[in-house]
Each structure stands twice: as structure tokens, then as C-alpha cells.
């Protein structure tokens, strides 16, 4: 029945209010009845309509309700009040829950936004987006988040690199804090026969070992499509094809 969300305020129109009262009272009784049956518990409702002189509306029946209430009253005070709530309590609970939801929703939204910004910045590094590094218009909070996410990725990548190299029984000695002064052309795709050979001979040659000069090590980027890269031994490792540059 989610047509329009009814605003939870006293209905001004008398007739409408009375009608709503009748309808909802019926619904409430039904829900109480279902609860009682499904869970085999005792329950009762006592409802006084708005006017002071109204008789009580009672569910299930007056005698049964009285029974439940007598049992209730016979309980020690502490037990009675332990699980007692009123309107204020309910509303407070709801606010708390919503605050939590809000907090989580904010975090999710922020995370996604950061991911997008990171992608845009990486894109800019590849020469997309007309110059600049894609970070110009970010707030300090956004910069921090992007930096953090990049750092996290870096750690994952470094770990992965370590693992791969360890698996291939290579000396895992290439420092990950490599030169940020890497020549710009290396950010593009460069094919180096030397490095390729080094890879296919992974087992024997410590191709990534400390022997090779750092800059030589870096020439390992391979262009996927046109340069006949078939037959690389690590192709089966799930070589990820790069977008053509």
C-alpha cells in the first residue's frame, strides 16, 4: 500500500481521522493475532480513541485481555519495566538506526566517489584529459582519500608482485619504492626484446634480479595487440589486455 507516505501527524480532518482509526485498529488487531498464533504467545491490546469518554477497544476479548494484564501486573516491577517502551523510545530507536544507516551510506558514497576520482587521475597520467594531472579541482579531503586508495592499491600490487616473483623463484629484490623519476616514455607502452627474453627464460635467468640495471628492468611493459606478443610464457597467467594506446 505504498502509494503515498502518510505523514505521521494527527490527522486534522475529523472524518478522515475516525476512518483511519477504525481501519488501523482493525489492522493492528490482525497483526497482534498473527503474532500470537505464529509464536504461541499471549498478547493484548487496549486502545482508547481520542475522545476522553470513549470506551476501550480491546483485543482479544475483555476477559482474555484482563488475564494477560493481570499476569503482567503480577510481575515484579523490574521485569515489567525492562522491556517497556513508549513513543519517545521508539522514535529515538528509529533515529539511532537511521543515523547508522546514514553513516554507512555516506562511507559507501565516499568510497565510490574516490574510486572514480582515482580512475580519472590515472587516466590523466596516460595522457588523456588534455593535460594536467586530473587532481586540480579536488578538495583536500578528496585528495587525501585518493592518495589513501592509491596507497592501498600500491600495497596490494607490491604484494602481488612479490608473490609472483617468489613463485617464479626469482630474487624478489626489485625495490618497490622505485624511481618516480622514471622517464615518461616508460609510462607508455614500450617493447623491449631483452626483457621479453628475460621473461620466457624465467627459471634460469634472474631477469628481475639485482644484476640488471634498474632502468633495464622497467622495460617490461608490453603492447598487447599488434606487435605479435603471442607465445609469452606468462600469457596463460591471465594476461590482461591493455586498451590500445
Amino acid at each position, binding site marked *: 500500500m*505504498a502509494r503515498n507516505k502518510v505523514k505521521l501527524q494527527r490527522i486534522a480532518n475529523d472524518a478522515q481521522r475516525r476512518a483511519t482509526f477504525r481501519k488501523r485498529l482493525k489492522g493492528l488487531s490482525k497483526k497482534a493475532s498473527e503474532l500470537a498464533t505464529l*509464536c504461541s504467545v499471549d498478547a493484548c491490546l487496549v486502545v482508547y480513541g481520542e475522545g476522553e469518554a470513549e470506551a476501550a477497544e480491546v483485543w482479544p476479548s475483555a476477559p482474555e485481555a484482563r488475564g494477560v494484564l493481570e499476569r503482567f501486573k503480577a510481575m515484579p516491577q523490574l521485569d515489567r519495566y525492562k522491556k517497556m517502551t513508549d513513543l519517545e523510545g521508539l522514535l529515538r530507536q528509529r533515529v539511532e538506526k537511521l543515523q547508522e544507516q546514514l553513516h554507512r551510506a555516506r562511507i*559507501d558514497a565516499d568510497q565510490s566517489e574516490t574510486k572514480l576520482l582515482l580512475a580519472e587521475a590515472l587516466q590523466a597520467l596516460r595522457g588523456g584529459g588534455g593535460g594536467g594531472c586530473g587532481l586540480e579541482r579536488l578538495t583536500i*579531503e578528496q585528495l587525501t582519500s585518493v592518495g589513501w586508495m592509491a596507497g592501498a*592499491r600500491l600495497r596490494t600490487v607490491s604484494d602481488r608482485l612479490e608473490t609472483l616473483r617468489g613463485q617464479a623463484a626469482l630474487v624478489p629484490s626489485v625495490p618497490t619504492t622505485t624511481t618516480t623519476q622514471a622517464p615518461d616514455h616508460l609510462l607508455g607502452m614500450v617493447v623491449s626484446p631483452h626483457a621479453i627474453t628475460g621473461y620466457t627464460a624465467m627459471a634460469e635467468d634472474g631477469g628481475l634480479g639485482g644484476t640488471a640495471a634498474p632502468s633495464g628492468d622497467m622495460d617490461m611493459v608490453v603492447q598487447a595487440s599488434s606487435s605479435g606478443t603471442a607465445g609469452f610464457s606468462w600469457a596463460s597467467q591471465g594476461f590482461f589486455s591493455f586498451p590500445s594506446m
Partner: protein
Amino acid sequence: MVRPHGGTSMGRQRIEIRHIETKGQRQVTFSKRRSGLFKKASELSMLTGASIAVVVMSEARNAFCFGDPSVDAILRRYAPVPGEAAAAASVGPSHVHGAARDDDDDRDRHHHEELRKAVEDARSQVAAEKSRLSEVAKKIEAAKADRQFWWEADVEALGEAELPEFTRALEKLMANVRRHADDQPQQQQ
């Protein structure tokens, strides 16, 4: 009905109204339905100004109850202990007690109104954040289609060649971030 947008429950199911055999399911049902019952009762009260008491006894002999204005007030009116009979009679027309009672009611109503507004505000804020999330998600989808997220593929999928390049790219990026952060005037958080 509201579209389910999260959670792992099984969704709306037609259920037969009879005793639930499985203890766990019964307890979960009890908890959820009791909560829903109280919520409905509170709505009835807020919408129509009715005074309500709901009392539910759990299997473990705990009493869960909800009342507006309070369970005690309703009990005093409906099932007064003989000694309270005289007092109960005066829980009649409010003009007997006049101003004092009405002030209390008004104060309560104001407070409830404030809380209700707080609920509304919180709810709309959540909705705003969620729509921000979906906005960004759409952009991400578009960017993915545009191959801008090549790096997002499972790190496993990246071979040894791509990783160093990615590493350099990330490091360069972080250097840029630091540069920009330093350039910016110190901002209050």
C-alpha cells in the same frame, strides 16, 4: 512495495498463520513482528491521537510492552487496582484537572513532534546519500565501458608486466596528490 535494495533476507513470502515449529524461526519472527506491531501501534497513536497499550508475553516469560502515553497510564484507566478506583474516575474529561494535564500532554506532543522530525530528516539524508551513491555508480559504469578501469580487474589477473607499470603510475599519482595537497592553503576539516 519498496524495492529491496540490500540485505540477504528472502523477501516477501506468503506465510501461513500457524504455530512455527522451528525455535529459531519462531524467535526471529517474534522479534520482528513484535517490533512491527509496536511500530503500527505508534502510528495509530500519532495519526489519530489514540491512547494505546500493547502487552506481549514472550516464550521466556518476558513481558514486552508499548504504551502511549504510557503503559501505566492506560492500565490505570482500564484495569485500575481497587485502590486506584477513585483516581481512575478522574482519568475522565480533562477539564476536571484542567491546565496541568494539558500542559504535560502538549509538552509530550511537542517532543514527539521534534523526534518525528528528526526521523524524517535522517531518513531524507539517507536517501540523499544513497542517490549520490547511485549517481557515482552510474558514472563508474560509464567509465568502465570506456575501459578506464583496466586497473580494477582482480589484481590476480594482472600479469608481471603490468604490475610494475601500475606501480609507477600509482607512485606518480601519489606524488601528484602530495604536490597538490601542499599547494592548497590549509583548510579547516
